[in-house]
Structure formats: C-alpha cells, structure tokens
C-alpha cells in the first residue's frame, strides 16, 4: 500500500511504467494519466476480469489522444467537476463529445464557449495531467516532463513540501489532510452529515477546535518546513459563511517541540509495564497511562540532554508507537512536565481501571474502550458532553421523547455517550429507526476525533523528521505506526440508536412498551450491546466527570 503524492491514478500509472507491476486496476482516470490499458473489474464468480484499452476508446469516440484528455476532463469522469454547460445534458458522454468535437482544436484555448471558472480549473487540470508529480520507485519526487514545465507550477500543483514529508505521507505515517491545509494555506470546513445547521456544531469547528488545529499545524512548521510556511498563516473558512476568513495564527503559535523531544523512551523502560497488561499496538493510550502511573518509572522516561545520540534513537515499532502517543498525551494535558500523570491523567487512569474491573475491557476489547473513554474526556473538556439542547428540535427529529424531563435528559446523555461505542450488526445494510438529532451529536464527535487523529499523526511526523528516529527503520514500520495510532475507526450511530430506543421504551407506560429488538432486524446482540453501553457509562460517569446540567 502506498499513498500517492497527489492522484492515486497518476501514481499507479507511473509505477506501472517503471515496471513495478504488470497491470493497473482502476478507472478512466488511469487512461487519462497515460495508461494504455486498465483493468476495470474482476468477476470472481466466473473467474474472469475485464479491461479497457485506450486505443479502442479513441477509435470509438473518434478522437485523438489530446481530444481524449479534454473529453475525460470536461465530462467530469475523472479529476474535474463538469462545467455548468453540461449539468443539464441528458448524457455526459454525448455532451462532452459535442463540446470537444465542436471546438475543432484542443488544449487551453479551445473552449471559449465554456464558463470562465471552469476554464481556469481546466487549465490547471490539463497541466496536472501533462506534468503529474509522482514518487518514483527509488524514492525520488518527480515532476513528469520537468524540462518542459513552466516556472509557476506551484499555482497548478500547489506549494511544495520537503521530500521527507512526502515520504512519510506516502508510507501512511501521516494522512494528507493537515499537509493539504499547509499547502493550500486554508482549512475549509464542509457541512457534516446532519447538515451542520446547529450553532453548537458551528461553534465547535470554528472556535473550540481552532486552537487544536493551530497547534497541529504549528507542529509541522519547525524544523520541518521551509521558511515560506513558517511565515505563512492558514485561514479557516466554513461552508456557511465563505466570506469570513478566520486567521488561525499558525506562525505565532508555540509548538510543543521542546517538550516532545524529552520523550525517547526505549524498550528497556517500556518493558516495566507489568506483564499481562495489554501491549502498545492493541491499546497505546492505556499502555502509556499504565507506564506512567508508577512515578519512579515516569521520571526515568525524561530525556534531558542528548548524549550519545545513536543509542537514543528510536527504532523498534513499539518504541515509535509508544513515544508518539506519550508526546500526544502530554500535549493534551494528561502528563506533567516531569512525566508523571497530571490530574487529568490520573482521572483517565481511574476510568481505565474502572473499565477493567467492570469487565468492560474484557467484553469490548481494549482498543475500543480506551478510545471511547479518552474521547469522553476530550468531549468533556470541550464542554460538549452534556445534556444541553444543541440542535433545533423542529428540524432535528429523533430526540428522546418519553418520561419526565429528567428521564429525557438522562436518555439523551446516555445516547450521546453511546455514540462512542461500536454496534454489533450483521454485514449488511442497516434497517431500523434513525435520528437526525443523535447524528448531529455523532458528527460533533467525529470532528473532535478527526482533530485528535490529526494531532497524533503530526506528533509521529515530527518525531520521525526531527532526528529522534533511526534512519534504518524499514518502510513497513512507517506504515504500521500510522496504522496503529489511535482514532482510526469511527463507530457508527447504531449503539446510540439502540440505547435511545431502549431507554425511551423504559420510560414508556409499562402497558405500551415495545420490544426494541424487533426494530433492529440485523443486530447481533442487542442485550450484549446495551450491557456494554452501561459499562461505558460506568467508566465515564462513574468518576463523576459528568454532571447533569
């Protein structure tokens, strides 16, 4: 697996050209980027596969190679959204063919009849096709046909990042999201799945999460990025008011780089976590908190001065994962400067211990539990793990509806917490009750989880790029560290819907109660899932971080 620098199709075609593969599997986008043949489908039942040849397409369409590029772009089949002129065409293929045929020529100047905005994007897209940026097999970042490229390629491709950063992205250590923000100098918030019309969501993404985003981006600046980026700010723009550009003040922000450098914990210390405790890859948060819960061990993890650098370099996958998470936890305030657990860290430890004792970890698995509990803490710190009404009830249907006001408030809070747990559902599409009200809250969690994932990834990136990690580390290790960092998997809304349905019915008149198991046709184990939700509540609510408000 590999992440392309830009387009996956361009990278696939480039690797194929270098003979790293025998064939490319994909869509018309691969033909656009120069593949002569692309495998478009496998039929496993009949043990066949189907491919498409560009030459055949050209002859069917009656087009030259250059016309085909224009056609692929204008039709909206590949990397561009089609022009407004095509939106009402009954058939994109016919419509795009006519536009290309009518023009009589190809390239930038050929489509004066199309709207100006589209033509601007068309130029950029056409240049990106002519000069794709790829990572070659021997690790070189390459602009194809560089010798023919113009001097303002950054306008077409985007600002350049250091090669090492591209490499970390290509190996999956860090996703493209934060790097995109840097190269575009903009964070653009799009509406969440519920539509995002609540002030609570808008306040979350534009105000409450803004400092976290700033810090995340500041962490990429030094010493990793070119001076251009160190001086360049990033604006936050939201879908509901695109005219408002909110500067995130990235150049002025302090990054926790000095604190981060003091984490170079080797396996010899990591092994002090008592045997039988879960290992880092399964539950890196739990592991880190267990490690530091012994004060003497915690203090041994401080690396004040670099002595013999080679002996301090991190190399083992387990060390890399643990140190990334330790840096992240200190950044989020769970660890003091002397590496002992802060009050928040101790509270987190208490919640983990509760989860262990109640059997929550044994039943749900350490990975799910540590993330659910950690997310609950973060939501609480953002002051959104509450019973307050966040969504317009006329538009956002599906709020708790039975029992007293207090009953409803508890049902709401428990359902909100249940958004953090997984739902055991058969491997088939869902049927059952929906709730836009709960989805709205789920999407707030999703925004917070995404921001935390960004931060933990950037801590990994910063660690790899600041000399703390041995250069001998195998490529696969980059990938495995990225894959094992927390906050990859987002639970769906299923468990929350089950909890809400159950509690609503429990608040119903006993003669009118329904059996909610009948509402969720493909659920595996409603009773088990409910039990899990109560244990989750026990671990989070049991330490009284929550108060009904």
């Amino acid at each position, binding site marked *: *697996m*590999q*992440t392309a620098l*830009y387009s*996956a*199709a361009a990278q*696939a075609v480039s*690797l194929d050209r270098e003979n*790293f*593969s*025998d*064939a*490319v*599997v994909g*869509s*018309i*986008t691969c033909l656009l980027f120069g593949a002569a043949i692309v495998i478009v*489908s496998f*039929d496993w039942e009949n*043990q*066949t*596969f*189907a*491919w498409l*040849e560009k030459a055949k*397409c050209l002859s069917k369409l009656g087009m030259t190679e250059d016309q085909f590029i224009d056609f692929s772009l204008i*039709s909206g*089949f590949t*990397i*561009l*959204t089609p022009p407004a002129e095509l939106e009402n065409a009954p058939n994109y*293929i016919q419509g795009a063919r006519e536009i290309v045929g009518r023009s009589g020529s190809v390239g930038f100047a050929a489509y004066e009849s199309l709207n100006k*905005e589209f033509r601007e994007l*068309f130029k*950029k897209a056409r240049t990106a096709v002519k000069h794709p940026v790829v990572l070659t*097999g*021997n*690790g070189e970042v390459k602009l194809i046909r560089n010798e023919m490229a113009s001097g303002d390629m950054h306008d*077409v*491709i*985007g600002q350049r990042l250091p090669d090492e950063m591209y490499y970390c992205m290509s*190996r*999956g250590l860090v*996703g*493209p999201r934060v790097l995109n923000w840097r190269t575009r100098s903009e964070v653009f918030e799009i509406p969440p*799945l519920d539509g995002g019309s609540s002030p609570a969501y808008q306040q979350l993404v534009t105000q409450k999460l803004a400092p976290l985003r700033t810090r995340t981006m500041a962490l990429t600046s030094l010493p990793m990025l070119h001076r251009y980026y160190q001086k360049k700010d990033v604006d936050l723009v939201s*879908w509901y008011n695109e005219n408002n550009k909110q500067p995130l003040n990235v150049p002025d922000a302090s990054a926790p780089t000095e604190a981060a450098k003091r984490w170079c914990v080797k396996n010899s210390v990591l092994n002090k976590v008592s045997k039988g405790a879960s290992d880092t890859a399964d539950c890196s948060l739990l592991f880190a908190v267990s490690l530091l819960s012994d004060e003497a061990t915690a203090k041994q993890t401080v690396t004040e001065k670099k002595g013999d650098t080679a002996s301090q370099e991190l190399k083992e996958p387990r060390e890399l994962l643990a140190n990334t998470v330790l840096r992240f936890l200190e950044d989020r305030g769970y660890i003091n400067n002397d590496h002992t657990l802060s009050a928040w860290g101790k509270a987190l430890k208490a919640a983990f211990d509760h989860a262990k004792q109640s059997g929550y970890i044994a039943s749900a698995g350490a990975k799910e539990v540590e993330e659910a509990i950690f997310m609950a803490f973060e939501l609480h710190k953002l002051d959104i793990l509450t019973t307050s009404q966040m969504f317009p009830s006329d538009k956002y249907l599906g709020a708790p509806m039975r029992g007293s006001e207090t009953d409803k408030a508890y049902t709401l809070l428990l359902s909100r917490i249940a958004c953090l747990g997984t739902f055991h559902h058969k491997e*088939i599409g*869902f049927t059952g009750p929906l709730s*836009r009200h709960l*989805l709205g809250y789920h999407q707030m969690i999703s925004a917070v989880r*995404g921001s935390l994932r960004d931060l933990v990834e950037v801590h990994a990136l910063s660690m790899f790029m600041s000399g703390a990690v041995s*250069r*001998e580390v195998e490529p*696969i290790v980059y990938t*495995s560290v990225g*894959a094992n960092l927390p906050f990859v998997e*987002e639970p769906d*809304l299923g468990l929350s819907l089950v909890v809400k349905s159950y509690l609503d019915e429990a608040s119903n008149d006993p003669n009118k109660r329904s059996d909610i198991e009948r509402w969720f046709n*493909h659920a595996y184990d409603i009773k088990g899932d409910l039990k899990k939700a109560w244990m989750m509540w026990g671990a989070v609510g049991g330490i009284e971080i929550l108060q009904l408000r």
Partner: protein
Amino acid sequence: MATRASAFREWANNESLTTTGPIDQLKDKRVVIDAEDFLETILTSQSTREPLLPALGGLPFALRKHVDAYLANLEEAQITPTFIFNGLDLACKDRATISRDSRQAARSLDEAWNLYSQSRADEAVAEFGKSCNGAPCVIPCFLLTNVCQVPTELTTSCAGCNLTSHAKE
C-alpha cells in the same frame, strides 16, 4: 447513485469496448490498484452499497467483509496487489468545487431527512443512497489500516523499491 467513473465504465461495456479474459492470465502477476476507485466502487455499486451510511456515519457494516473477500480472491488467484491512495488535492479541486459538491450533498441529505420525517421510508432511503459516494475521510483511513494489516508483503511488493535510502538523504 452511479458515479461518473462508473457511468463511463457502463458506457464502455455497452459499446463492447471492454475485453474479458480468464483470471489465470494474471497468475503470479503484480497489479497496482487505484484504491480510490476501488473504494468508490464498493460504496456505490448496487450489490455492495449501504444506502443508510450517511444517516449512521462510521463505516459501512460490510466494508471489512468486501475488502477481505477481494484480498482473499486476489491471493487465491496468486495476484499480488499494491493499493495506491490519493494524496494531496490537485489544485483543480479548488474550494469552489468542494463547496459546490458538499452543498449538493447537504441539500440531498436534508431532503432525505424531510422524507423520513414524513414516514416516506423508501423514498428517504433512496435519497440517502445518493450521498454514499462522498466517502468521508474516515473510510480511506480505515481501509489503509485494514489493507496494511493483511499478512502479505503489500508494501514491499515493489521489488527493488529502495525507499528507505530516500529518507536518509
């Protein structure tokens, strides 16, 4: 809703432009797979799509099953895959484009919720299903992780691919 890439595929099929061959032609071969197209196909094709995905968030319930089955089939056919994911946005995907696409999706989802509130369940499901192709970034992230943990040498399948030395420079 069919995506535009699949519309082209369908057209090519109807025009008899695709050629079919037995899978054993690919035995012992290596293929590079455009993972974005692979994912979009799972999310949108009739047999694998889960129309209520945008009403539930998270991952499609059968995603892991589909991915595992695909990998198992490749392995059985002795084809070695390398999945390639999209990286940074191309400049032609500008804010206006993202904004327009996301507004369109939001309008459709709003309509789906309206239909749901009027108890027009089937119509609501169909409307929700139109927004399955805009994969939220959690899905590629999951897929990347899931594919990575398959115990084949996916990442080193580029023989001679000396990427470590690059990081040293």
